[in-house]
């Protein structure tokens, strides 16, 4: 590879804890890897498992969820719902061949600006080590097999795929 692989990480942060922590990291001028794109939600309970899969399907190399620590949810227990879903979703994602490092749930309170930095840097390093996921290009690669037919079907009646053996 000529160019260094830069992971794309989509992060879903709850507004009260982790989004605020990321703001704090900014106010404190902490420096971390620029590979993360944050999407704000009110509560980690809002994070639909579809969002995580959607992010992967559209080219995310990693997905990070950030919520309030257990017991600290601004909405009392939204983060527990998030935790329960994450447990099973992690299994689904891994069963579907996605490395476990690519999907991460972290509790980061509004005071833990430094933790945003550590977690992001850590995740970027881990994903750099395992390489790109980039599902859209894999989808394209899979679907390339359908072009074989386009090349032949209009010319002859019969299947005449040339044997390469």
């Amino acid at each position, binding site marked *: 590879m000529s160019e260094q692989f*830069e992971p*794309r990480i*989509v992060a879903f942060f709850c*507004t*009260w*804890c982790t*989004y*605020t922590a*990321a*703001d704090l*990291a*900014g*106010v404190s*001028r*902490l*420096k*971390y890897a*620029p590979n993360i*794109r*944050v*999407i*704000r*939600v*009110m*509560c980690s*309970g*809002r*994070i*639909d*498992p*579809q*969002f995580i899969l*959607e*992010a992967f399907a*559209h*080219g*995310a190399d990693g997905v990070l969820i950030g919520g309030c620590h257990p*017991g*600290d949810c*601004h*909405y*009392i*227990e*939204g983060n527990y*719902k*998030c935790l329960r*879903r994450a447990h099973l979703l992690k299994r689904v994602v891994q069963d579907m061949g996605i490395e476990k490092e690519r999907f991460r749930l972290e509790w980061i*309170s*509004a*005071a*833990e600006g430094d933790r945003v*930095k550590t977690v992001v840097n850590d995740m970027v390093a881990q994903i750099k080590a395992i390489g790109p996921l980039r599902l859209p290009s894999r989808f394209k690669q899979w679907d390339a097999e359908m072009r074989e037919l386009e090349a032949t079907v209009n010319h002859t009646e019969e299947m005449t795929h040339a044997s390469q053996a």
Partner: protein
Amino acid sequence: MTEKKEEIRTGFYICHCGHNIGSVVDCPAVVEYVKGLPGIAVSRDYKYMCSDPGQELIAQDIREQKLNRIVVASCSPLLHEETFRKATSMGGLNPFYFQMVNIREHDSWVHTDKNAATEKAMDMARAAVARVRFHRALEKKKAPIHPDVLIVGAGIAGIHAALTLANAGKKVYLVEREPTIGGHMAMFDKTFPTLDCAACILTPKMSSVKNHPNITMWTYSEVTSVDGYVGNFTIKVRHKPRYIIEDLCVGCMACIDACVFKQKFEDEFNQGLSKRKPVYIPFPQATPQVVVIDPEQCLKLKTGKCKESCAEACDRKAIDFNQKETIEEIKVGTVIISTGFKSFDAKKLPQYGWGIYPNVYTALEIERLVNASGPTGGDVVMRDGKHPKRIGIIHCVGSRDESTNKWCSRVCCMYSLKLAHLLHEHSEAEIYNFYIDMRTPGKSYEEFYDRLLKEGVNFVRGRVAEITDWAMNKDEEDHLVIRVEDTLAGFVRRIPVDMVVLATGLEAREDAQDVRRLFNIGCGGEGFFMERHPKLAPVDTFTEGIFIAGACQGPKDIPDTVAQAGAAAAQCLALIDAGAIELEPNTAFIDEQSCSGCKSCISLCPYTAITFDAVKKKAVINEALCKGCGTCVGACPSSSIIQNLYEDDQIFTEIEEVLAHV
């Protein structure tokens, strides 16, 4: 939902924020890039979007360019989302046709690679521009504000806030855990830098609280539950039994005299420097002037067997051994938390010998010791009965220290100076102050330091290593030796003294985490309650309608505490007088047509906002109860719940577009 197709005309604005954004993100490049995105009618950059001309730019473009969507890329939405929503509505557009992109806190301030930061800004801008297409016009809902206020903690902060509000005609519930109000300030002797007597300035305020018709003062009481939201809190308060009928007791103390016990229990108010009986009044000016019985110590309450001479002695029959705790429920619209601080536990630094050498004291103990109404009547006599000839005051005990607390406790330098003055005045002893840096920022504070220098107090610059009674030579024998590196003189010194005072720092209270959970507010890493914004919202919390004041937010002195208490009171007044507060319209609603009535969502709502309509057999969300977390939306198996401002399509678009790289 089929709506009339409108032509999307989006205005995009990127803010340089002076150099804050502009020096890292190439704003003109982002402007050019956004011009190529679908639906963009205007794309501009500006030095300060939040300034009046910046806002006017948006409003004017909406009017002149017929914009119907607005995106601003600048700082955190937590800071200026409201500002730009207002600008959007100034232009005549519904304020919710607006989306904000955080390219300062989340981009320019945290990244150094300009190309990467600019690319990130473009990604986020593209996502916002795409997302805003799916926005809808929304109305803010209004919640009425109950005019009563709850204040938790009746130290100087709580007292000042209560009086401010009560004088403005508002009804205040002031809840204090201890048997008396007054807090730490009531223990102090004099206050710096004016050296006026703490009691003289505090006790009149305490009695005003007691007598104010608008203040309901509950001592020996604690808040046990908090429900509801801004304007409409339901609070449960537990009244612990004092075993005294408060209305009957006049504080004559005849019961105390009559109690069969000798004075044998540690007097908390005097920091254990004196003893008291199981029935006691914390200090002479305690408010209310009502005694309290400690059930752990009282013979009657512990064993059931006692001749009850106290009850006999009470003319007014105020003693009631059968008193039980009671729970009272109140409704308030706003809350001020002023629970104060905890003094650093000097035991955590055993090298300073507190608890090992009797003549080592904490600052709070000295406050009582030099106090005319203290355990010795102001005579500086040590635990060994002697009078000190030399005293060492050690600064920064449990402050500015990697192994304990990293922060500066802000008040210790000044109170150490004050104690140096008072100790010298009371004992004529020679005083040594051991400091790392003298921190005296405050009106007349530096002058006070100067005065102490002239009074002949010795100052040694260096962090003390240890206090020991090991004598290296004759001079040191029978003394406490302070071993310190004098960083100005450049060598290690051993200074023998008779008495050591530890200037213990300020910490968050032990139960700060419980209080934080109770009121659903935040704590910083050091444990103090977190303000909404360190500069612009210093007494607000992340929960609307709950404010903080005093040292529970961070170490501070009395003037700053009082100022914060006033500010918190003013914030409550502002809400109460407005009568109502506008709430974010980010509530969820159920698309009745698509709901299958599977009930999966109902128990997920912590606010019981979702119910099952038994006739229609569908779930229904009560908008007034919904707080807008979106948990039910994430869980709805047929995507039949929609959260305003966080609709599925809006978030899906955001996901797709942040990833749709250039």
